[in-house]
Structure formats: structure tokens, C-alpha cells
């Protein structure tokens, strides 16, 4: 048996045992790399690259109206998209294309719209509102992949993109 402070000890033994020391050495290196990847993935998850984190949340502002939503979603997980409307005059219209709803299930809308209609594959929800209003949409991803859609609030178009993980 030889010992060294740096190298892995070589053992001469009579056991019927295939140690494959070289493979162990390679394995320890790969393990370290693997741990690096695992911890990197954890940090990315904390940051929100896989959803529910600061990197995932995005806010778009146009004409005084804004929308806050999550860019990264997970399959069958719930998320929220909130529209903030300024200077509403009597009513608000929220236009969501059907293409968007193929990927995202609109679980509920708060407050409830007083009516809706679908024309040319675009569903429009109508709300009674005056001046400032918030509309909360509770979503659930029902398909994996990428979806980009233009959602209009009082004729203001917002380009919403989601990356949905399996």
C-alpha cells in the first residue's frame, strides 16, 4: 500500500473485488461538476428562471395602463396576471386571443366581467369601471412550450410571452 497526501492510495488486496480506481477518480471529478450544475440550477430556480421568482415577474406599461405577469410558468401550476387601468371611462374591455387560451387556462377573473363575446378568435371581456381599476386573472398553464400573444386592455396592446416548463 502506498500513501501520499495528494493521490488516492493504491491497495493490494486479496479480495475478489473489482475496484476500478481510475473510474472512481473520474467519478469524483464528474461528481464535483455535477454538484456545480445542481447548485447552479438551484440558484437559477431561486432567481425565478423556472417561475415564481424575481426574474420571472415582468411589468409592461403603456398609455398609463400596465400589466404584471410571470414570464416563466410550469405545467399545471397556477399564476396571476394583473392589469392596472388608469382613467377608465365607464367600462374596460379586455381582449384575449383564443391562441393564448390554448396554452393558458383562465381559471377566474376578479372582478367578474358583466359580459363577454368571442369574435374572430378573440374573446373580449367587458367590465364596469370608473377611473382606476385592477383586473386579476388567475391562470393555469395547460400546455408546455412558448406562447406569445397580444392582449388588449382598452385598445392598448400588450405583448405577453410565457415559457411553460413541463
Amino acid at each position: 500500500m502506498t500513501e501520499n497526501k495528494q493521490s488516492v492510495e493504491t491497495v493490494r488486496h486479496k479480495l475478489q473485488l473489482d475496484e476500478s480506481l481510475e473510474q472512481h477518480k473520474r467519478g469524483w471529478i464528474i461528481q464535483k461538476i455535477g454538484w456545480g450544475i445542481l447548485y447552479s440550477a438551484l440558484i437559477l430556480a431561486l432567481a425565478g428562471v423556472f417561475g415564481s421568482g424575481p426574474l420571472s415577474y415582468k411589468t409592461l406599461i403603456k398609455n398609463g395602463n400596465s400589466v404584471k405577469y410571470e414570464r416563466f410558468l410550469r405545467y399545471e401550476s397556477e399564476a396571476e396576471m394583473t392589469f392596472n387601468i388608469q382613467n377608465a371611462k365607464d367600462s374596460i374591455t379586455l381582449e384575449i386571443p383564443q391562441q393564448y387560451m390554448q396554452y393558458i387556462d383562465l381559471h377566474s377573473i376578479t372582478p367578474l366581467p358583466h359580459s363577454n363575446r368571442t369574435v374572430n378568435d378573440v374573446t373580449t371581456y367587458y367590465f364596469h369601471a370608473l377611473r382606476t381599476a385592477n383586473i386579476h386573472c388567475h391562470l393555469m398553464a395547460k400546455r408546455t412550450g412558448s406562447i406569445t400573444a397580444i392582449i388588449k386592455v382598452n385598445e392598448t396592446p400588450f405583448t405577453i410571452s410565457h415559457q411553460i416548463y413541463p
Partner: protein
Amino acid sequence: MNPVIRGIIIYLFLMLVFRLSGKRTLAQTTPFELVLLLIISEVTQQALVGEDYSITTSLILITTLIGVDLLFSMIKHKWKGFEKITEGSPLIVVADGKLLQNRSRKSRVSEEDVLEAARNIHGLERLDQIKYAVLELDGTISIIPKESAV
């Protein structure tokens, strides 16, 4: 997602993570590790089944997991190199009553772990009574006592 694909992904991911974490991780050496293993199995079960509690999905998933495992065991049987990659190989950590420092450090086996195994299996009292201690594939430590210690 198709349950077959889901089952294969989960199987491969678990195999990769357990292989990367090393033999000693989750070798159920402490009650906490046993609890951790149970939590992992619970999370895995949710990812596998999702919202679909049908018997059909369960049958598909069981068949998938057994099928992949069977396929892997056949490949391992035919190609020994594959077995070494997926499961590793045993490692001697004590020889002639001396702890092999670099081997034990890299495989995260402490002198206490070896002594515990020596006490449990053979009722040995000291390290110098051990001829060989081997870290096995499942993370357990096998003890071969010196003839004088038996």
C-alpha cells in the same frame, strides 16, 4: 405530458441525481435521511401522477418504470462498463487497520462510520481489528475483520 415520457424523465433524473450525490448520500444512516428519502418519494409521486389518479395512468407508470429498469438491467448484464457508470464500483476505505485518508475523504466516509459498521456487524472495538472495510454500491460499509479479531 404523456405518462410514459414522464416516467422515463423521472427515472433518468433520479438515477442521475443519486449517482452524482454519491453512495453515502441517502444511505439511510440516520433517521433524518430516511425522512428525506420519504419526502423525495412523495415529491416524485406528485410529479409522476399529477392530477391524474386513474388506474390506467398508474398501470402505465408502473409498466414504464419496471420496463426502463428491466432494460437497464439487461444493458448492464451485457455491458459491464455501463453497470460501472450507472452504479459505480466498491471501494476499499480501510486496509490493515488503517483508514485510507484520501479514499475516505473523497467518498465522504469517516472513521466513525467505519467503526459504527464494525461494531454493528462484528462487534469489533477498534480500527486495528479491521482487515478491510469496503464501501459497497448501496452506500453501506462491509467489514472484514482480521483473523485474530474474530
